[in-house]
């Protein structure tokens, strides 16, 4: 059993209430930080922990905090990114639903570290029930003197507000989120300036994912060094993984970074294997934006190493044969799934969610959707496959925000690893409407395809 830091008490009845959360040792981190540590001490502890942003990019949280500008007389803000819209990701919703005080406690500790006196939790609008839960948790914490003016008699003041989004994946991108929080369309800003210099209302701002903020609680309680002992290399601590698709036990799991992918898929402690005893065909390890890998490359790297759930191991082999940990949206495909159809579905998603500011993304995602629709429905040509490859290359790296890359990578990876399936659709237009391609040469337990 791996250590649980965020979900340790998840099965405790009433852990969603203040009373039970407090009784289980909740808000100790607030007491410790506010009463015995300076804000810089807190930042230092988070740096020592090696915590990396859990929203997808994996940028070291302590380092990000140390970039925050501190001009005299200008307010600073902490904004929690609870927009969670990356297909395959549902861990933040789980945390906020079942143990909301873990986020509120982390918000207080983190706001204190950054010197923020007003903080916002930007929650995607569809999560109205979670918004109510968080508002209730905030009210409880406030009644207990842990929020508001002069918290615990330390002289530190903090208000936390919950902001609903309006339904737009792009508002998970941090500058689009800030635009949205200012009451505008979610168009990402051109960077620099980065939010650490000019964020919300032009003031210095840190945007962090729900899970990153909640992780500061065990870091302060046990110390950054203790946290860093868990995990491997620069992948320290625990991570929430959202597991979905064709597995026996979909759900949210807290893992110690470093568990092997194979163990995560097949052990009863986690996903419990593929449904109906079928074979694994493909896997998306970190949310729809990261490259999809065939079974043989997800359990072992091209070099033959066992693939582990860490930032480094999942990325081994680069985009030729690796992928990314991303947000931890772990999507499992069994032998009956169609890669072309899935790629079309994701392309449609990105086209739908493109904010439309840059032409490569706005037009390119639309093209990819159309071409993939054509191939999936039996009207594709071999040239279409090359056209797709060409379009995705022209999007990548040529846009204001990373949504363009996020749209391009899944298409590139699908063609790179499953080209034979695309060709089969083109060559067998009728048959491809009746049945799926199934497993092919890349299937378990064949040797990895090294390019």
């Amino acid at each position, binding site marked *: 059993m791996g250590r649980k830091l965020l979900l340790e008490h998840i099965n405790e009845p009433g852990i969603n209430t203040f009373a039970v959360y407090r009784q289980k040792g909740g808000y100790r981190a607030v007491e410790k930080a506010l009463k015995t540590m300076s804000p810089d001490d807190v930042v230092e502890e988070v740096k020592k922990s090696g915590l990396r942003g859990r929203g997808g990019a994996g940028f070291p949280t302590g380092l990000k905090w140390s970039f925050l500008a501190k001009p005299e007389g200008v307010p600073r803000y902490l904004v929690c990114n609870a927009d969670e819209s990356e*297909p395959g990701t549902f861990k933040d919703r789980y945390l906020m639903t079942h143990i909301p005080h873990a986020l509120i406690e982390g918000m207080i500790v983190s706001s204190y570290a950054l010197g923020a006196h007003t903080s916002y939790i930007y929650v995607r609008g*569809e999560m*109205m029930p979670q918004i109510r839960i968080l508002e209730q948790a905030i009210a409880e914490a406030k009644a207990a003197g842990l929020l508001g003016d002069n918290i615990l008699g330390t002289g530190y003041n903090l208000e936390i507000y919950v*902001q609903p989004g309006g339904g737009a994946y792009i508002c998970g991108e941090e500058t689009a989120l800030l635009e*949205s929080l200012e*009451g505008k369309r979610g168009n990402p800003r051109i960077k620099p300036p980065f939010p650490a210099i000019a964020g919300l209302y032009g003031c210095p701002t840190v945007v962090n994912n729900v899970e990153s903020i909640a992780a500061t609680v065990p870091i302060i309680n046990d110390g950054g060094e203790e946290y860093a002992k868990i995990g491997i290399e620069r992948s320290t601590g625990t991570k929430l993984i959202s597991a979905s698709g064709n597995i026996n036990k979909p*759900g949210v799991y807290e893992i110690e970074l470093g568990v092997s992918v194979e163990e995560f898929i097949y052990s009863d402690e986690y996903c419990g294997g593929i449904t109906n005893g079928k074979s694994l065909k493909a896997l998306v390890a970190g949310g729809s934006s990261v490259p999809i890998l065939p079974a043989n490359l997800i359990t072992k790297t091209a070099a033959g190493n066992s693939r582990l759930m860490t930032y480094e191991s999942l990325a081994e082999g680069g985009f030729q044969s690796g992928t990314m940990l991303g947000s931890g949206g772990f999507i499992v495909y069994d032998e009956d799934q169609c890669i072309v159809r899935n790629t079309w579905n*994701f392309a449609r998603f990105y086209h739908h969610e493109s904010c439309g500011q840059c032409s490569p993304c706005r037009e390119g995602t639309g093209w990819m959707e159309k071409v993939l629709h054509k191939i999936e429905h039996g009207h594709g040509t071999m040239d279409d496959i090359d056209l797709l490859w060409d379009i995705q290359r022209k999007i990548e790296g040529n846009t204001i925000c990373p949504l363009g890359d996020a749209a391009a990578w899944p298409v590139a990876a699908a063609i790179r690893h499953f080209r034979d399936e695309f060709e089969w659709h083109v060559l067998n237009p009728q048959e491809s409407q009746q049945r799926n391609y199934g497993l092919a040469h890349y299937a378990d337990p064949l040797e990895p395809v090294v390019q």
Partner: protein
Amino acid sequence: MLSVQENFPVEFSDALLAKFAEVVSRYPAGKQKSALLPILHLVQAEYGWLSTDAMDKVAAFLQIKPIEVYEVATFYTMYFLRPQGKYALEVCRTGPCCLVGAERIMKHIEDRLGVREGEVTADGLFSWRGVECLAACGYGPVLQIGPEYTFYENLTEESVDQLIDTLRNKAKEA
């Protein structure tokens, strides 16, 4: 999309205006525009959709231009710019849910309600549409119903039938 036919005059109640004011109090002075998205949710919860008149009145309340409200209302997918069914079923249609049968569920809803995506049933009770990933992928197929955004998870054809019947009865009683 914003046509005169889609208009519907509204008069915000004092209770609703009080809620607007509470939202505005969350932001620094002069940053009341931040209240726009939360206020549009409140308006939609009250009337079921956002008419041009409602949006104009929100603009007046927040002291911003009407276009600033329209551009937001048209950008975000949760805001309805025309009347919906009393119960607007929103089914997730994204990849992970499709692995566990979301497309079958959408087809079933279409057959069962007898209206296409985006249309309203003749009795005004139901409309439906596909939406993108609802952050519930492990519990798919899923659908949500506003304005509370209650989730219905692990859907089957039978559970969808039951849900529709329950809602129909609830509407009759009301």
